[in-house]
């Protein structure tokens, strides 16, 4: 069985994560089977491969598959895998909360991304999986998404949500306190939202264990993956990534390489900040990509420009 190596590119916004992901995926695909996935909703990846917004994936060559990480299809395929019975599945699909997860409330895309990662890993198809991520500071971090969701899908929360207000009269003290909690939540959000929420949890309870399994597997894969931090050579990006590194290493993540993108020799404000940056991270290895006059717009152009710099 092939166990693919996972390379994840992280960093604050606009530093070149997508370019580096494309470069590595393309380079590796010359000799290996590679899947390149983006979990960034801005989907810049599609521009490099002439894809449309609506495209979910594209076979670039025999060795390279590019995926834009489609939330709707991923959620639906997850349900299909874990709830074979169509009637039960429809019950989940029909709840308003699930509908909005597919539609307007697209803020929580963590789970679908993690599911795609786990599925790609277990498909025994790829030697490498290369991942382009959203900017580190914007969203709840992709790297820690699994842990947050594990809490939500814990037995404790489901037990708490398994609540039938009808039984209030004959219920004990604990139920009464829970009832008061739900009433308060109702005052915050509206009673019908609470009912929807209880219904949602009731309907998805058959997949709780399945979700947890995916989350734990994803968490393990991310912990073992190679994390590459990309940083643009300018004052704000250096400062911003300094925070990111501190935060990540504090949470036990290990960073393999730091890529300093758009690097140039000079004595501007950034060179001072960079001296400090190097000193604070002297234990990490640095790779430099020189500042280019024109940004490469195709994988081949990227390969030509980057290959000498980052061998």
């Amino acid at each position, binding site marked *: 069985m092939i166990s693919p190596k996972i390379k994840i590119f992280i960093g*604050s*916004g*606009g*530093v070149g994560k997508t370019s580096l992901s494309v470069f590595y995926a393309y380079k590796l695909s010359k000799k290996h089977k590679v899947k390149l996935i983006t979990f*960034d*909703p*801005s*989907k*810049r990846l599609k521009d490099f491969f002439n894809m449309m*917004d609506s495209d979910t994936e594209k076979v670039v060559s025999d060795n390279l598959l590019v995926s834009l990480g489609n939330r709707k299809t991923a959620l639906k395929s997850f349900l299909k895998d874990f709830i074979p019975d169509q009637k039960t599945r429809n019950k989940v699909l029909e709840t*308003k*909360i699930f*509908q*909005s997860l597919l*539609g*307007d*409330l*697209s*803020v*929580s895309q963590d789970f679908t991304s993690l599911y795609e990662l786990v599925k790609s890993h277990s498909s025994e198809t790829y030697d490498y999986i290369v991942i382009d991520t*959203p*900017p580190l*500071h*914007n*969203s*709840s*971090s992709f790297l820690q998404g699994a842990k*947050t969701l594990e*809490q*939500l899908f814990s037995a*404790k*929360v489901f*037990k*708490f*949500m398994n609540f039938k207000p009808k039984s209030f009269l004959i219920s004990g003290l604990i139920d009464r306190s829970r009832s*008061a*909690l739900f009433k*308060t*939540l*109702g*005052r*915050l*959000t*509206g*009673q*019908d*939202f609470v009912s*929807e*929420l209880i219904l949602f949890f009731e309907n998805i309870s058959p997949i709780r264990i399945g979700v947890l399994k995916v989350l734990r597997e994803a968490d393990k894969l991310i912990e073992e993956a190679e994390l590459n931090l990309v940083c*643009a050579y300018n*004052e*704000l990006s250096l*400062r*911003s990534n300094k*925070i990111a590194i501190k*935060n990540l290493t504090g949470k036990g993540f290990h960073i393999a390489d730091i890529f300093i993108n758009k690097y140039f020799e*000079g*004595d*501007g*404000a950034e060179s001072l900040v960079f001296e400090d940056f190097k000193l604070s991270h002297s234990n990490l290895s640095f790779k430099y990509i020189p500042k280019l006059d024109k940004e490469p717009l195709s994988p081949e152009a990227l390969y030509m420009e980057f290959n000498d710099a980052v061998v």
Partner: protein
Amino acid sequence: MLLFLGCFVVSLGYMALYILSGKGGVGKTQLSMALAYYLKSLKRRVLLVESAQVSQYSEFFSKEVGFKPVRLEANLSVASWTGVDCLGEYVGRVLKSESLARFLLSSGPMKTLINAAPGLKEIAILGKLTADQRSINMPTGFDDIVFDAPSSGHLLSMLQVPSGLQKIVGVGPMKKQSHEILKILKGDGVKVFLIENSSLASVELKELSEKLQSQIGVEIHSIVNMSKDADFPYIESKVSWLETAKDLAKFWKEFVV
């Protein structure tokens, strides 16, 4: 009495929320800061806000920046709002009781649920950004808020939340909140600027602008360009980013009336 009423109307119409977004790394923070300096030069009291999981502003300003506004200089403060912080405040405000809010959040499962529920954090941040314009709470004492917003795709997801929540909730405070916030976002008090930094018109920003308009009804005020020969003639300078922001402030004159 008349005079008092007159003041009230004028000052309400005056409050503005500036939302700056664009592709990642184009210089949103620098231009937000430049805008804050420009508004300050018009004798406005300005608050510059980032929303982040982990504050970047503390590092950018070499100063502890948190939920409560920190004064940088006269009439100019900065703050860093996380979803969790805003949500905590939001819960207290809607329930109109500190102790009820504490009761709700004292339950472990409930806390997990509220923090993970889709859209709640976003609505709390948007709620706080528009609180003055909705005359919620005591006025914050700022004339303008400059929101150094998440990059394009993330801003769209964030602004979609009010209409998304309205669809789940039929009646109740959350529906009312979402409705009010959406009304403010569509109104004259909110000015959205998208920033690009290449001389080529960015397809991504055009798409974003169209989606904001068709899906949410939010109009883009302008797409501004931050590159060598454009609206904001940015040059790499030997001074710090803050000094550069100060230099760029005057170019906002053309966009902010």
